């Protein structure tokens, strides 16, 4: 008897509580905050938390606050799967942001597909959304787009013979594959196709080989510090041909490492590093300035591309929740309908056939002049 009364009372209390303070919308996040991929995971985690805080400060989404549950994957796919399972079963999140790396993302895909929870990955790998998976989206730009940007510029300059020098790791091999695959489409001939090791400290021999050929431009694909060494070696050898680098070095760190030798190098890059140089007419300018300013205020550091991927992911989810409500189904369907969302990584247009959503305009070509970035028109 008393138990029935109690449970009825409890029931009333709970409904009342639900009506007054709307429950927060739980969003899960998987980032490689520690481990070898921490350079991705840390800015992503920081940014995601920052954006969620900002949204909550502004009253949340339709009066409901957001709650971000972050788990560290350590860049290990086993941990990523465990954390994803926990987010779905224990925390009952409506959507997941991340993971940071392609490997973690691929590992988590079967889990979210089975649980029917939308996921917005922050990793760049093409296979994440190619072929398209129903519940999986991504924000980081494909390597292909950077290759297209460089080739487009070469074509404009009527350069057709190039040498490529790529690093022998996953980033370099993916770049090399794309450089070779896209060449024919732009009428470009690769005369030298050479590689270097991620820990090599002298690339003079590869560059000497390049100097002896008819190549009119050199494209180098790698992450710091290798490309800086190449830039220095090229200067020492007096190599006159224009030098193109990948988006893997589009950070101030590269200019620091390469010093004088960085002068004149051209890089396809996301717009974050040149946010203040962009014309007012640029559609992304507003988002970029907001991100750069907020990040500076929160963490006293410059925001980077990786943080940008997380910014895009949270904002895309916010848009989807506003339109479709806070259910996994609604979010997924609205995400797919996203059009002309001007984020940090580019202007996103998702569709049932495209869950990556970006074109080569996601990149701008920048040139290094007097130790700073200049936009190439």
């Amino acid at each position, binding site marked *: 008897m008393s138990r029935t009364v109690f449970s009825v009372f409890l029931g009333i209390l709970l409904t009342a509580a639900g009506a007054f303070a709307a429950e927060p919308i739980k969003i899960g996040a998987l980032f490689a*905050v*520690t481990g*070898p991929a921490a350079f991705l995971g840390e800015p992503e985690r920081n940014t995601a938390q920052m954006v969620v805080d900002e949204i909550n400060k502004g009253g949340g989404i339709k009066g409901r606050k957001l709650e971000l549950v972050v*788990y560290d994957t350590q*860049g*290990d*796919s*086993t*941990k990523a*799967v*465990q954390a994803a*399972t*926990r987010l*779905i*079963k*224990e925390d009952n999140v409506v959507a997941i942001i991340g993971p940071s*790396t*392609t*490997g*973690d993302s*691929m*590992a988590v*895909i*079967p889990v979210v597909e*089975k649980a029917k929870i939308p996921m917005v990955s922050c990793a760049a*790998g093409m*296979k994440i959304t190619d072929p398209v998976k129903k519940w999986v989206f991504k924000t980081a730009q494909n390597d292909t787009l950077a290759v297209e940007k460089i080739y487009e510029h070469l074509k404009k300059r009527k350069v057709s013979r190039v040498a490529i020098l790529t690093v*022998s*790791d*996953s980033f370099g*091999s993916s770049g090399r594959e794309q450089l070779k695959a896209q060449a024919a489409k732009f009428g470009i001939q690769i005369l030298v196709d050479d590689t270097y090791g991620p820990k090599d400290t002298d690339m003079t021999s590869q560059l000497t080989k390049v100097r002896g050929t008819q190549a009119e431009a050199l494209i180098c694909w790698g992450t710091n510090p290798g490309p800086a060494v190449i830039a220095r070696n090229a200067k020492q050898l007096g190599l006159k041909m224009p030098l193109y680098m990948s988006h893997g070095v589009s950070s101030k760190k590269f200019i620091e490492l390469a010093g004088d030798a960085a002068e004149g190098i051209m890089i396809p890059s996301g717009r974050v590093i040149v946010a203040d140089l962009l014309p007012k007419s640029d559609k992304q300018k507003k988002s970029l300035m907001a991100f750069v300013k907020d990040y500076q205020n929160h963490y006293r550091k410059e925001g980077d591309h990786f943080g940008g991927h997380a910014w895009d992911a949270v904002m895309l989810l916010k848009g989807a929740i506003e339109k479709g409500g806070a259910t996994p189904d609604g979010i997924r369907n609205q995400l797919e309908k996203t059009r002309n969302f001007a984020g940090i990584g580019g202007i996103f247009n998702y569709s049932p056939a495209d869950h990556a959503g970006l074109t080569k305009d996601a990149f701008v070509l920048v040139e290094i002049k007097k130790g700073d970035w200049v936009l190439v028109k």
Partner: protein
Amino acid sequence: MAEGRMRGSAAPNNLYFPLTLTLSLREREFSRQYHLKRELLKFAIFTILVLLLPLAAKEGYILNVLVFVGIHSILAIALNLLLGYAGQISLGHAGFFGLGAYISGVLTATHGQNPWLAMCYAAGAVGILAFVIGFPILKLKGHYLAMATLGLGIIIYILFNETVDLTGGPSGLSGIPNLTLGTLTFDNDLKNYYLVWTFTLVAILLAVNLANSRIGRALRAIHDSETAARLMGINARFLKVQVFALSALLCSVAGSLYAHVMTFVAPASFGFNFSVELVTMVIIGGLGSIYGSVLGAAILTLLPELLRAFQDYDIIIYGLILILMTMFLPGGLVSMAPVFMSLLRGRRKQPGGAHAEA
């Protein structure tokens, strides 16, 4: 010391088990039977525990973690046979684990092979590989053996990364099918739990049986002194290679299970770090104790999950717990068992050594 008795009672094939030398034949027979009964009882209790655990875990994510505890247990048991019994260190076991996972993965995902057959192929291939490599490598001792196995693990890891066309490189291999049995597909945590733990239980049974056999005693003799073991007529070199191959084979089976449970594999899961984690599991659990290995695997897999509540500080606390455990429980967690049991019974029983607690 025990010369007189040795001539009188000990059978020649048991010569190298010093403990038995002091017992008469009858005593020995009795103690053997008692021991056997106790082992069976232990195994039965453990099996019931394993069977009932999902009821407590319900359908939560913990069940998912427990699946990995099962896989890690097989690995820890495999390494324990080598490290705890034969006293030979290996810092390359993650490599064998990875080989099993990748062979299964590539055969099923790329070539559409039957998963069970793929598992057998993988186990056979890895076993043979370890057997062949074992001969030169196990001639080394101490730090040199550690370095050689470390190198082996790293070579395998690099192979996974560099053979992009075959393995998918650093971003992994996806599309691996789940295991099936007739119409039953092992595609959720509960089914996978029973699948994996069946293998784990078989591995435990195998390991316990091996540890209590003539071979097990021979391995322990090698552990204590290889020279003495040889003098007693043990073919130490061959035995070491055999146990190395068996250990690798078990790792490969665990790898195959991992691949089919995850339906995805990436090289990052099979790096040097994981090899060290395996050694830690064995040491935390207790060298030379099969159930200790299961305990070690459980602790090292569950602890990070439990510590997630501390957010950024979880790694520090995790490290601290490991340091404290090795400082105060050098015999591993199983060295607590006799104390615990005597507390349970309310009277103090003579504690058995780590070896006897197998």
